[in-house]
């Protein structure tokens, strides 16, 4: 409790108390000791800013100290602003507590109402989306079975053809051999395609069965290159139609500025499904553990954003090279929402990012309380 207070340094009394408690330790970078009249006297005595919690004197002194809005009254007290933004002529706290009295209008009411409205809408939407998610998870079971079956079938057929090839080879039936080889290649490619989904469907969807139905769907978004990449070195900036087919590929095609008599623009592959983005590749042991964990608890667990195994972002690689550049690559980030593609960006040459909203990315812990909590930001 006391230590937490010391870290927050929100209040004058807290700062003083902390100075008494911890100030004697010369090694710790804790609050330093100053005479009482030097606290909040608009001069920075302590490198950690602990003597000036309610002035800007210590702004930039190397301290991470912040100013707390709202004179400590919850929930407004929770907005923290950098010390340098205190008394700088710009209203940052909704109650105006960072600027001299009667400088700033009190906009906390508006903020609170806006937040309530936002939460109410989100609450209603999420309730719906979570139902959709459960349905998707049901569909997902069949979907995964489907893939497994497809792979098994393709493998069976392949083996059959290989057997036939051996037979025809022995019988020196050249035409039949070539035909079997042709079929074998077809099944092999089907199998290879499925291998894009890796060995186990659970691994493909990272344990999230509700995402499996996405594999048979494609999503579109049309945007102008001024908007998705910032501009064009050509006189005219063009519109492009992007198609994201999760677990398959991403393509684009130019849809504006097509001149008569010129060849129509061709669809360009931006990337082929390559898996989920991982911050660090998990070890084999970790993979097994995670799969087991997910198999056991899939229905009960939420989608976990921000874990080491970031299963929110799909990677597509090996796209066609752009002019003078490397092969194109794509990241598709899944967000909680209705099923739609909401954003495309080219950030850096040949590097595309998309945001795909799906109820499959919604979790129960996203449902907001209808009353804002203390740590909500104003």
């Amino acid at each position: 409790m006391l230590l937490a207070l010391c870290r927050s340094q929100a209040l004058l009394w807290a700062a003083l108390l902390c100075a008494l408690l911890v100030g004697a330790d010369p090694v710790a970078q804790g609050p330093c000791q100053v005479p009482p009249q030097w606290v909040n006297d608009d001069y920075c005595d302590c490198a950690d800013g602990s003597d000036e919690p309610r002035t800007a004197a210590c702004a930039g002194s190397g301290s991470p100290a912040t100013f707390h809005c709202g004179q400590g009254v919850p929930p407004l007290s929770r907005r923290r602003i950098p010390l340098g933004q205190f008394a700088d002529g710009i209203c940052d706290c909704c109650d105006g507590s960072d600027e001299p009295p009667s400088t700033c209008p009190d906009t906390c009411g508006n903020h609170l109402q806006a937040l309530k409205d936002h939460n109410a809408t989100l609450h209603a939407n999420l309730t719906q989306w979570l139902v959709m998610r459960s349905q998707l998870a049901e569909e997902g079971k069949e979907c995964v079975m489907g893939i497994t079956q497809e792979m098994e079938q393709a493998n069976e057929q392949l083996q059959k053809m290989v057997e036939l090839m051996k037979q025809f080879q022995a019988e020196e039936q050249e035409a039949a051999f070539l035909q079997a080889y042709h079929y074998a290649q077809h099944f092999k490619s089907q199998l290879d395609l499925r291998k894009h989904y890796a060995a186990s469907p659970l691994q493909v969807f990272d344990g999230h069965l509700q995402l499996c139905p996405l594999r048979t769907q494609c999503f579109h978004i049309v945007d102008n290159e001024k908007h998705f990449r910032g501009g064009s070195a050509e006189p005219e900036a063009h519109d492009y139609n992007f198609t994201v087919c999760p677990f398959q590929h991403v393509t684009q095609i130019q849809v504006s500025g097509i001149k008569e008599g010129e060849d129509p623009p061709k669809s360009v592959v931006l990337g082929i499904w390559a898996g989920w983005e991982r911050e660090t590749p998990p070890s084999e042991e970790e993979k097994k553990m995670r799969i087991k964990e997910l198999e056991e608890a899939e229905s009960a667990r939420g989608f976990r954003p921000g874990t080491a195994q970031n299963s929110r972002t799909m990677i597509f690689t090996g796209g066609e090279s752009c002019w003078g550049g490397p092969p194109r690559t794509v990241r598709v980030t899944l967000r909680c929402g209705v099923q739609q593609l909401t954003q495309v960006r080219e950030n850096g040459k040949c590097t595309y990012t998309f945001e795909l909203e799906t109820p499959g990315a919604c979790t129960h812990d996203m449902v907001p309380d209808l009353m804002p909590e203390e740590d909500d930001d104003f």
Partner: protein
Amino acid sequence: FFSATGAPMRCSAFFAFCLFLGICDGLWSSGNIEERKQEAQVDAYDYGILKYTLVDGAYKVKDAVVAKPHGELSVNDSPSHMVLGNGQTNGVVAKSHAKIAKPTFTEVEMSVNDEVAMHISVDDKLPENAQVGAKIRFAGAKTIYGIPERAVDLALKSGHTYRLWNLDVFRYQLDDTKGIYGTIPFLMAHSATRTIGMLWLNAGDTTVGIEKDESGITAKWQSLSGTLEVYFMPGPTPLDTLQQMSYLTGKPYLPPLFAMGYHQCRWNYRSEEDTLSVDEGFDTHDIPYDVIWLDIEHTDGKRYFTWDAHNFPTPELMQEKIAAKGRKMVTITDPHIKRAAGYHIFDEASANGYFVKKSDGSGDYEGHCWPGTSSWLDFTNPAVRDWYATMFKYDKYKGSTPILYTWIDMNEPSVFNSHEVTMDIEAQHHGGVRHKDVHNQYGFYQTMATYAGQILRSQGPPHDTTTRPFILSRSFFAGTQRYGAIWTGDNEAKWSHLEKATPMLLAMSLSALTFVGADVGGFFDNPEEELLVRWYQAAAYTPFFRGHAHLETKRREPWLFGEENTRLIRDAIRSRYRVLPYIYTNFYLAAKEGVSVISPLFFWWPTDEKLFELQDAFMLGDAMMVRPIFNRRSESDSVDVYLPGSPSEPWYDFNDGTAYTAPATHTITCDMNKIPVFQKAGTIVPMRERARRSTTAMRNDPFTLQIAVDAQGRASGSLYLDDTHSHKYENGAYIHRQFTLQDGTLKATKYTRTSAYTATQAPATEAFTTNLYFERIRIYGLSKAPAAVFLEPLSGDFNAYGMQDVGADIQTRQSLAFDFSNGMLTIRKPGAYLMLDWTITLA
């Protein structure tokens, strides 16, 4: 042959003669030798500057030189020579005279204090295409500098021929002797005993070959068009030479304070939403910045002075939001105009015939640039400049507001589908002048017109006073410093480009171009994180400080590279804002005295030969030295820094006060936190140490004085302050305070020092007052703690300053709190006001 109207002659001396130059017009045209009549002319200017011209009817550069000849010339004639003394007395630093050989008048010796310093020998064996040429010999010179802009070493190299021709060079190569975007045909020749300067006033395609030998340096000049016009600046020190160049081509303008803050740019922020979120990002990450920029894509189809209706539908509203944070914006307005009926700029320019014409004069010159088929405004025409200025008025430039400033790019001019990516050299400008005659001045003229536009728009509501313009141009010529800032164009995200930025900026600075910078991070390609951090740390101390990046690079806002790099970049940008009072003071001194803001080290220690070719460090003002780091730590985590001077003038680490002896080379270990920055002994640097979000947010913050004492315990420095944005300072609405520490007493008085180069000021009709004060005085280099520290006001007309409420506590002698540790004295809240005279005594 010569016509002299009596001695002493006023202003200038003329000598008419016939010159057998291979370049004479029509020399072989009809089988007869036709001589071109030329008149040699010598003019005298202030400060001993002399001009030698061959007047022959060819195009003469206009508007670059602003000084008028008004010195007296004494004439001493003999059968073999004529000696013309610069008899003017105004600000004579060195006596000079010209000795002209008769009867040709094409051999001229320029002397400083009766010693021959420069010899002009008009070239009579020019290649067929050259129009004028001369060998110019700098007697006794050891090194020679100048002729920006190119990515070469600061000291020009013997055996190299440099080309002066403004071009938009795609991915310009380091160490290429060919020119890039701008030109200042100025050379500074230096030795331990003398520095002189020369200006080859010609805007045509020019080359300079440099040859060094044991007794001096020869520069072989040739221009493919124009007139031979050579200005000689007698020095005798580097600073004198620079100030003489500033006198000739105009002292730099004083930019508004915000322009010295950090600028955030990119090709291109996508939309209003994107722009505002970047602005918000700076506040969220507590990183200061002042200006956010919009490149060509903010327009409707690259029609400048318009807005993209989809991505920037409410530009005024966007600017209001930026303005509410005390920040500014910049939009780009390039000189090429899309040929599109209905586009107001095109329609008006077209109707008035304001475009450059084709070589046969039959119609508008056309070429390709960003918008496709375009024509180029003829900024050499005063009527076009006047008209262009009106385009910046708020009712003309729809969607612009008073916080919007201007960037002018591609003004070499860049023409994508033309020879050397520039305009047809025979294209016709105003008055039938061919492009080849004015080429290197094209960007300069656009800067001039844009400056006029920003002045014009502020001469009425909503402005209550005219505001100082801010313009960034890529192309420049001698004189551009009067109007705006320059950046080194499209550099690359490479360590070598960071390294070369220093000599490039120094070459401009010593050629009187003051407000200069290089794109932080490198324009092309993606910088590795360590490079980006080091670039911020170095650029924080250069006059112009902007991050910019190409369309095809990854986003580069300072917080996108992890927490640690965000902290390092934040600290680097903050280090800039901390010393802004010092930088602003130096910009003022530049405007007043014609000095530069940054300079090579040899400027301050001209006799130290170790500094002659030193280009990895620079001086900021006369108190701070900066050594950028341009190598990875994995290659070396330390640098050798040579600190010049004398044993009585040690150096101090700017941030922690560690003392370093001089003259000596020190090995400085560099972690990622900072680059070596030193404060010279004997100096005082005014600062503001509170980290704010912008210059506007700092306006009420108190100041710090950081003092580094010499061996005798002495130091001095000054602080300039005004309203930071208007022209009222020209009428006296400013304060300039002098601080002197001597014999244990720090004294604050009015700054009264003047030099021969100080601009004459009109009597003050306005005043600037402030109740700001010093919150801290920090002294490096004291050997022991004082027993006590006292403040005593010398004088204080508090009422006159509107400071009735603050005066009471400083009218009596007061004992001040202080702390002394690690050789650093910190005086706490001395109660010393900026406006007042006071002394602080260390007892």
